[in-house]
């Protein structure tokens, strides 16, 4: 006789066994090597590689004479000494010191009566390490320098107003990177690849004149055994720009002499250079100073935008001439999508961007991988299909490159597109 308890136990055992079997198989694994075409779906992923010669149109360059970045607005102060090719010299002007300074913690002030010394700080953010005996020369300039000051206008003071010269390589070789005689020093930041140059100027060369009350304008020139090139941080590069530190003496009102330290950042910094940047022409200019940009409009077939998937897209640009600049330099070109197409004033997207590196003197076709941009456009059909080419970072060097425009049917920009058409889902 089968009791209810025995039945219950049997059912429980069966349930457990079944549950174990199901749990053991409750993980899907459906992927197997395909034996094609006999045991594979009829459709397959297709990839098309095509060159669209007329995809780029309505292209032109902008940015001269006033560039997207100009010498007075860039984060770099470019110093170049390449005779016959380029001569560029940073200039900056600091504000005045107060004629009276607080003597102690109360409100009593005393007049500034003299200067012990002046320290000028410059930060070298880039230099050509292949050149030797890099020297930095300081010149006293007229206080009237501003953004309209030209290279030619400053030639006289750059000729007769030299106040100090510092050899960077010699200073780097000094024990502790300090010159015990001149009391110049140098600090190397190997992490950020920065060299901070601290140059002591004689107060006799930078006097605290009553009319100027400590305002000073300085010019900087670099030289080396070979053509020299260096970039200094501008005041736009927060915390790294030029800095003038005054060690001043106060009238101690009959007590012991009092000393104070006053620092001044530039009210204005820029660089002057010769020869001036060439004007724009029909070609697509990118980079240089003032910084030029080129705007290109791109169109591609609806079969791609509607259902295709871009695997790789390159914008092929043929240079009119080799990119010119300091031979050791290279620079980046960024292709930005725009938020709205306003032509030269189109706001560029900071996130939809593709880049490439251009080497000086190379005449090869420049290929910018614009896969991200095309995928973005396919995903957002309302976005304008406009590319802005610009140098990165803008205004960082004089290197400039020009490409043939779309009006040149043979050498104009080409969109080389590799894409996958829509898979034939739902077809037998």
């Amino acid at each position, binding site marked *: 006789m*089968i009791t209810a308890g025995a*039945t*219950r136990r*049997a*059912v429980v055992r*069966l*349930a457990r*066994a*079944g*549950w174990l*079997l*199901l749990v*053991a*198989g*409750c*993980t*899907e*694994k*459906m*992927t*197997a*090597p*395909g*034996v*094609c*075409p*006999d*045991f*594979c*779906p*009829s*459709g*397959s*992923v297709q*990839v098309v*590689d095509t060159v669209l010669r007329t995809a780029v149109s309505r292209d032109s360059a902008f940015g001269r004479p006033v560039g997207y970045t100009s010498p007075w607005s860039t984060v770099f102060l470019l110093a170049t000494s390449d005779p016959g090719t380029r001569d560029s010299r940073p200039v900056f002007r600091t504000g005045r010191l107060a004629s009276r300074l607080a003597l102690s913690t109360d409100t009593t002030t005393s007049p500034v009566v003299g200067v012990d010394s002046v320290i000028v700080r410059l930060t070298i953010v880039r230099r050509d390490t292949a050149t030797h005996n890099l020297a930095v020369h300081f010149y006293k300039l007229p206080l009237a320098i501003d953004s309209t000051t030209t290279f030619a206008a400053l030639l006289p003071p750059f000729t007769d107003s030299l106040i100090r010269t510092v050899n960077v390589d010699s200073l780097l070789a000094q024990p502790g990177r300090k010159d015990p005689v001149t009391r110049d020093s140098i600090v190397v930041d190997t992490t950020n690849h920065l060299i901070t140059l601290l140059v002591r100027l004689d107060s006799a060369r930078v006097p605290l004149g009553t009319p100027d009350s400590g305002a000073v304008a300085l010019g900087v020139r670099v030289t080396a055994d070979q053509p020299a090139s260096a970039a200094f941080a501008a005041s736009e590069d927060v915390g790294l720009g030029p800095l003038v530190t005054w060690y001043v003496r106060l009238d101690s009102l009959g007590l012991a002499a009092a000393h104070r330290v006053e620092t001044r950042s530039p009210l204005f910094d820029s660089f002057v250079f010769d020869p001036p940047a060439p004007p724009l022409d029909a070609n697509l200019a990118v980079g240089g100073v003032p910084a030029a940009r080129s705007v290109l409009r791109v169109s591609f077939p609806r079969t791609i935008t509607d259902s295709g*998937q*871009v*695997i*790789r897209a390159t914008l092929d640009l043929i240079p009119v001439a080799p990119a010119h600049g300091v031979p050791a330099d290279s620079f980046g070109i960024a292709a930005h999508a725009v938020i709205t197409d306003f032509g030269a004033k189109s706001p560029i997207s900071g996130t939809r961007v593709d880049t490439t590196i251009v080497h000086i003197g190379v005449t090869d076709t420049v290929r910018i991988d614009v*896969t991200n941009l095309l*995928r973005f456009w396919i995903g957002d059909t309302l976005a304008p299909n406009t590319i802005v080419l610009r140098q990165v970072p803008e205004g960082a060097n004089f290197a400039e490159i020009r490409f043939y425009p779309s009006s040149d049917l043979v050498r104009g920009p080409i969109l*080389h597109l*590799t894409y*996958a058409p*829509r*898979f*034939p*889902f*739902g*077809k*037998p």
Partner: protein
Amino acid sequence: MSTPRRFTACAALLLAAIARPVSGQDSQFGIAGLGTPGHPESVRSRSAGGAFAPFDPTSPLTEASLTDIGSLTASTAASASFRDVESPAASTWLRATRFPLFSLGGSLAHRRLFVGGGFSSYLDRSYAVVTRGSMTLRGVSQAYTDQIGSEGGVGDVRVGAAVRLGAHVALGLGLHLLPGSTRETATRRFDDSTTYAAVEQSALVRYEGLGVSGSALFTLTPALAVTAFGRSDAHLNRYVGDTLTAESELPRMVGGAVRWSPLANLRFAGMAMWRSWSRLGANAFNTISWSVGGEFGVTAPLRFGVRGGRMPFGPGTTAPREWGVSAGTGRGFAKGRGFLDVGLERLARDGDGLHERVWTALVGMTVRP
């Protein structure tokens, strides 16, 4: 709970269940075709090779068998398959868990009219195949890996009715809706993934179809019954979005079965079935499948069976062959209101260039509230 309320509750369960895609038995042989046909069999029938399915009211194969359902009955099944695929390329173990069946039936009009419904797997289209290849892009050969996948299938939602005409004859009719969907994916990944982005595309493919079936059950003696059944399915339409992408002919089916019960606790059955899959075109074959099985015992019956036949899709000039054995048992509980069935099936499929060996564990539950 009154019978109509019970029926409503069970129908709600059914609708909730069919809202999810179902699929049955996967096979690589179905990839190049329309899919892999499912087995419309309860665990009890499948454990006996499927031979009892034409007589089993919880197996949605025939409607005339509903006349044996007695009271309101709901049945479901779950299966876990472990499949070894042997091809010239490699040998691979695959796993899948499915819920291939739910049925509901009962009697109306003082046990003269019997109605039933439910769903089962009509075609399974779950697979993922990986292939390697290369192509020349921009003058350089680029190697890649393709994966084409599909997940889902076509269900068979049945509404059927049967009447008993006297003591020896029962007739049944059924209407079959064939809804389904598959999530299909196609990917290509280049080895040089930094230069070439991956292709990743997917789509939801929707299926619609319709079919009718009919069957007749003849109880010749208390120990001997035979049944004949047939079914005709129309087109299976495939849609991507609202666009009709393909229209496939579906097969017709005829079959017959016999059941012999020499003793009260011993039953045997045999079944044969023909389906005109060749209507689909190239690489599709008409199939004949058969099964023989037995069931011994009442309280905890032992079931066993053998099945054989052909698969409808495959390369070459002959259809792949399928052969299998199965066994199982079951137990009632809750004073006969519930039945738990378990089974184990071993299938072998052989075709040109591919062999499959499948272990399938089956668990079924039948409830009579």
